């Protein structure tokens, strides 16, 4: 049995990008990586379970898993369905993870960059969320 190295408690907050469009999600992740490199856990997903425009609860759950950090995960979403599906995905997580995941009330692309920049500086989950939400539009 392999033992996972316990993540250090000061790990940076993870960021998940959820868009109806796989292209938007990928492009926003590219822009985030350009700003913060590999300093934060980052995952993205977009598209309904058939790959059309929409979102997918299992894909969001997998993205949360991929961007997991013991300091928490901030999710950026585009429109209604992405938010509803992300809320659902959070509820389907294990009890001990659920409270460490938040959805930011912020625009998906701009919010992801602000949240990631904040997270890369070691900010706490609430600060990361606030950084995304402080955004005046554009």
């Amino acid at each position: 049995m392999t033992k996972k190295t316990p993540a250090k408690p000061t790990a940076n907050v993870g960021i998940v990008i959820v868009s109806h469009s796989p292209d938007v999600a990928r492009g926003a992740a590219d822009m985030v990586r350009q700003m913060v490199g590999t300093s934060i856990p980052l995952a993205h997903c977009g598209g309904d379970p058939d790959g059309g425009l929409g979102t997918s609860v299992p894909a969001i759950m997998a993205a949360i898993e991929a961007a997991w950090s013991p300091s928490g995960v901030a999710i950026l979403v585009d429109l209604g369905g992405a938010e509803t599906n992300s809320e659902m995905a959070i509820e389907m997580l294990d009890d001990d993870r659920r409270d460490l995941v938040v959805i930011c009330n912020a625009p998906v692309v701009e919010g992801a960059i602000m949240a990631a920049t904040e997270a890369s500086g070691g900010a706490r989950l609430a600060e990361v969320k606030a950084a995304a939400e402080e955004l005046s539009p554009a």
Partner: protein
Amino acid sequence: MSSTDAAQTGLTIEALTKAIDAVVATIVDHASELTDLDMAIGDGDHGLNMKRGFEAVRGAAAKIAAQTPADALKTIGTTLIMTVGGASGPLYGSLFLAMSKAVADRPIDLVVAAEMLEAGIQAVQSRGKSHAGEKTMLETLIPVGAALTAAGPAADPAALTAALKAAAAAGAASTVPLRASKGRASFLGERSIGHMDPGARSSELMVGAVCDAFFAPAP
């Protein structure tokens, strides 16, 4: 179930399976109508979303057939959540999950069924942060829930079917003059007026299929 059966032994998994089959069939049959409604005031995917979700439910038929009705409802809810891909997935999914939970190990008679539906409607409202009057599936579900509750424990099957279908049809039709304040249709503002809400229509279809499966005299 006939209402008599229901009062005595409760809903069986066979009856529920028949209802599921009927719902899947009607959703598949009406997918393009639902998509057209969503194209007018949304993103034009409600038919596809529902079809994908309910075909996945059909794919779980073997599993469901071996479950209790309560567990079967949970399987339906989870399946919809995982496969629909639009806002309607978590909404309908939460409806079924809450209905499952409300069974609480009781045989499902009409009184329990009414409680279950009311719990499901509550779950839709919490999940959607929405309420009656916002031009959503709730416009159909709420009056249907009220009609089922009003019917009482020993309603006549034919009369109940008529009452529930009428409530569903009136509910869906009532969305036409409403202005949407939830979901994508809300982006249209005034221009959402004059169109039926796709989710209200899919709810109407589901209610009709379930009534027919449960209460229609065997052919």
